[in-house]
């Protein structure tokens, strides 16, 4: 063998083993390195080692969460694609599928909020059209530290700016989401973005490479030096004060380019030129290449010398690990390359032939003919999996022991309500969503702020979908399992209130460092809680993402398993908002007997205490209440619905009144009627956060019908009064004009003054 042939076929292995600190740069441990040596039977090359760092990161490899994720129910009659693809897909009839996925972009947003959030939006939208689906909606679930601190406000405003910049420009409406604030998110904000798309089911595209000899093309943006080590260095490690140095690991997005990429890829999906498509997200070319190969049980060989680049002098390592945005890897049928290129040319996008599908099951990377990486795809695709035994954190006993029985009121009930309405978690998010284009594409029936979920019609049908995100991090902190159950239950309830039947879940599991066994406990309990509730309510998890290591200087965030819920409306006429109309009667589904204020927004906002047990959840009752509400809507009885959540019944009533511009007087008899057996006490009745409650409004004539539906489901129904007047009056506890309620609610997020 001549020397030159030898060079072409031999991997240039590292001259010596890397040190622990070298490995830490790419978030690998010495133990993991030992496994790499064993699997390869030799030292890795520099490129290979970088690929291991990326593929074995929690972000790509789920090495801490994989066994837990198996607990989720992921199948059902509607499921066309469960977890494991770029996004999940469910059948909604009419030959259509709804595709959805949620993903985190927490650490990039902590380091560079505008671009971090923007590329979060771009990345998740890419997951949708990679499946061949047209993106029709984005939702954002955001968490920050208290906004009275300048750094937190900077991050909050930057993230919102990034979302609006990317989402508005690309022409996908941002229709919903949530914003919460708590100390634990200071320094480690959460930016969870959910995207939803629609496709004719038969056109769904997968990311499974097939057909030896088929061509691998890289399309879209050129490859630059941005985002290198984004998934290993940034997403899969804790943050510290040195994160400023990590700004180069954040990618920079170009929404216009992605808009072109959407149109080109959707045009491509109408042809039969391709066998697979995979977007380049975390770990760039590395992960997309390994994934298409391992899913297809084939090999792939590419020459990165053929990859168009933004700058000269990039090393193979940099090209393989770049997280430059707006790129896509496609597997093209042999002979169709020119046809594919013509489509991308028309949209003004690059398309490079970079390699081919091979038979040997290996991922082989060449740089101008010189091998720089070469190993079986599984070596990278199946990272070591850690099964840990979690330890119940000590703090749980302490916080759960907190008893609210003897809590002394510090404000009048009216002032407490005003304070709650202005509490940033509860306050109107109008100042946020008015920056998002939520009506583009002309599908939005219920937009942000008008209902418990956003409702979008499915063009060409009489159907619509309802989408909502939800998670109460405070509950999950106080009881990781119950809090996660409630996240599922409440998001399903939200979708039901808007008229939809819950049919699928996507999620984003945000936790601290799972190597700490107390955190692992939170994660495991959270997954179990979600799985419990999903099973009870009959909704499968079809996609999701795990974001661990959400800690700053050793302090973990609240466990935050964010849930994205999809509901289906068989008739778009079932869409419901929350606003009352003059003369409608207002009633409560479910009862108001909860006697504890543990874990409530009231306890935090008014008393400054985060403790106690979150409200109990009976999943059978939950299911019955949701079924009642849905049937009431479908029969045309319920005109508006709003669930009781943060701030309890009083806040729910106030929000419906503000939205409708019409008041309500709840009399003593009505108060007692839904208070259970114990005597009603002001703060408890007004602000408890008992689950499984929905405030509905309807014509008085329809009350007997609703009573019948409720009776059939064994759900209690209590009349609260008739909507009218300009004041919210609850017994002799509070009496406030709607204008004053609205002022508090609308001003809660502003840095001074009021939101218009």
């Amino acid at each position, binding site marked *: 063998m001549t020397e030159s042939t030898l060079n072409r076929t031999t991997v240039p292995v590292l001259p010596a083993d890397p040190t622990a600190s070298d490995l830490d740069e790419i978030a690998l441990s010495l133990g993991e390195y030992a496994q790499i040596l064993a699997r390869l039977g030799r030292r890795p090359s520099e490129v290979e080692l970088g690929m291991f760092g990326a593929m074995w990161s929690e972000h790509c490899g789920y090495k801490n969460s994989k066994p837990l994720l198996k607990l989720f129910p992921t199948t059902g009659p509607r499921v066309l694609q469960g977890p494991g693809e770029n996004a999940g897909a469910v059948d909604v009839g009419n030959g259509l599928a709804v595709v959805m996925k949620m993903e985190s972009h927490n650490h990039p947003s902590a380091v560079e909020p505008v671009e971090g959030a923007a590329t979060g939006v771009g990345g998740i939208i890419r997951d949708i059209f990679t499946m061949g689906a047209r993106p029709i909606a984005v939702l954002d679930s955001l968490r920050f530290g208290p906004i009275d601190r300048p750094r937190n406000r900077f991050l909050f405003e930057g993230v919102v700016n990034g979302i609006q910049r990317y989402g508005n420009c690309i022409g996908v409406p941002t229709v919903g989401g949530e914003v919460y604030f708590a100390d634990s998110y200071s320094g480690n904000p959460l930016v969870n973005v959910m995207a939803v798309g629609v496709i004719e089911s038969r056109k769904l595209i997968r990311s499974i490479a097939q057909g030896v000899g088929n061509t691998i093309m890289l399309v879209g943006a050129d490859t630059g030096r941005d985002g290198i080590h984004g998934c290993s260095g940034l997403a899969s490690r804790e943050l510290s004060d040195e994160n400023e140095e990590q700004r180069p690991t954040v990618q920079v997005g*170009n*929404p*216009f380019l992605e808009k072109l990429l959407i149109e080109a890829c959707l045009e491509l999906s109408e042809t039969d030129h391709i066998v697979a498509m995979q977007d380049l997200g975390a770990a760039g070319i590395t992960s997309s290449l390994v994934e298409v190969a391992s899913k297809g049980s084939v090999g792939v060989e590419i020459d990165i010398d053929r990859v168009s680049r933004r700058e000269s002098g990039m090393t193979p390592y940099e090209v393989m690990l770049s997280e430059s945005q707006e790129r896509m890897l496609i597997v093209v049928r042999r002979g169709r390359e020119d046809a594919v290129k013509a489509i991308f040319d028309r949209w003004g996008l690059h398309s490079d032939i970079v390699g081919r599908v091979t038979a040997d099951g290996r991922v082989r990377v060449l740089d101008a003919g010189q091998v720089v990486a070469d190993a079986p795809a599984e070596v990278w695709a199946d990272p070591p999996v850690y099964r840990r035994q979690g330890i119940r954190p000590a703090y749980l006993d302490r916080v759960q022991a907190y008893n609210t029985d003897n809590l002394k009121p510090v404000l009048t009930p009216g002032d407490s309500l005003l304070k709650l309405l202005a509490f940033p978690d509860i306050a109107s998010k109008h100042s946020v*969503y008015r920056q998002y284009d939520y*009506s*583009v594409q*002309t599908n939005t029936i219920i937009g942000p702020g008008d209902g418990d979920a956003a409702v979008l019609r499915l063009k060409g049908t009489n159907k619509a979908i309802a989408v909502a995100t939800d998670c109460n991090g405070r509950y999950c902190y106080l009881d990781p399992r119950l809090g996660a159950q409630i996240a599922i239950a409440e998001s399903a309830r939200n979708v039901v209130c808007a008229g939809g039947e819950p049919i699928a879940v996507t999620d984003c599991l945000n936790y601290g460092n799972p190597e700490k066994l107390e955190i692992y406990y939170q994660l495991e309990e959270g997954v179990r809680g979600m799985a419990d509730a999903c099973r009870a309510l009959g909704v499968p998890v079809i996609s999701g993402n795990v974001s661990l290591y959400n800690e700053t200087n050793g302090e973990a965030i609240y466990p935050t398993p964010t849930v994205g819920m999809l509901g289906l409306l068989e008739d778009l006429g079932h869409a419901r908002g929350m606003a009352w109309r003059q003369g409608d009667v207002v009633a409560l589904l479910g009862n108001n007997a909860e006697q504890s204020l543990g874990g409530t927004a009231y306890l935090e906002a008014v008393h400054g205490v985060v403790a106690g047990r979150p409200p109990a959840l009976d999943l059978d009752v939950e299911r019955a209440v949701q079924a009642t509400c849905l049937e009431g809507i479908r029969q045309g009885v319920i005109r508006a619905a709003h669930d009781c959540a943060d701030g309890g019944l009083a806040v729910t009533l106030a929000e419906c009144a503000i939205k409708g511009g019409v008041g309500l007087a709840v009399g003593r008899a009505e108060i007692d009627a839904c208070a259970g057996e114990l005597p009603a006490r002001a703060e408890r009745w007004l602000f408890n956060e008992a689950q499984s409650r929905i405030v509905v409004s309807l014509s008085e004539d329809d009350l007997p019908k609703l009573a019948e539906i409720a009776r059939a489901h064994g759900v209690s129904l209590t009349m609260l009064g008739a909507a009218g007047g300009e004041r919210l009056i609850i017994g002799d506890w509070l009496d406030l004009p709607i204008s004053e309620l609205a002022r508090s609610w609308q001003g809660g997020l502003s840095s001074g003054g009021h939101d218009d």
Partner: protein
Amino acid sequence: MWHASHQLDHYDCVILPGGFSYGDHLRAGAIARFAPVMGSIERYAADGGLVIGICNGFQILCEAGLLPGALLRNDCLQFRCGWVNLRVENAHTAFSNAAQPGQVLRMPIAHGDGRFYADDATLARLEANGQVVLRYCDAAGRTTAASNPNGSLNNIAGIVNAAGNVFGMMPHPERCCEEVLGGTDGRLIFESIIATIRSRQVAPAPAGR
């Protein structure tokens, strides 16, 4: 029609829709104004063809000089999405004849650069010629500062050129043509255009060259 085309086929009306052409890089509409197709649109307009620009389309028409004035960053310096009220100032244009003079319309807006600006002389000319077609107002039709979502001069939301065949507006009539989307006032704009085309059909509309 495709942006790179140099040829305009026979059309009754050209609509430049909204949508961040070229990502609003440089300035909203500043690059689209140089798109190859714009040359034919300019000739089409010069020959009396109907052209309407909505949102980014309005910005492009201003950049291209087909409409006077400019659209600056909203005075709040943020993107604004929501519903606005519009008063019909001139119901005798090709784009507003289906509305009543003074009628208040409800339409969505979604823009970051919608603040209409023109120098004093231009503004005076627009007002004197009845070229201001739509103005932001409150529900009662009063043109207040609070009802102006972006700081546009004289609350201007839509203008027509002196010849009356080129129209630009920031609000989105196409997003409110169905009850299910929250309103149908946008239909008035399209019904006006259709009525104009019908009335013109005695003599065919000009073709682009």
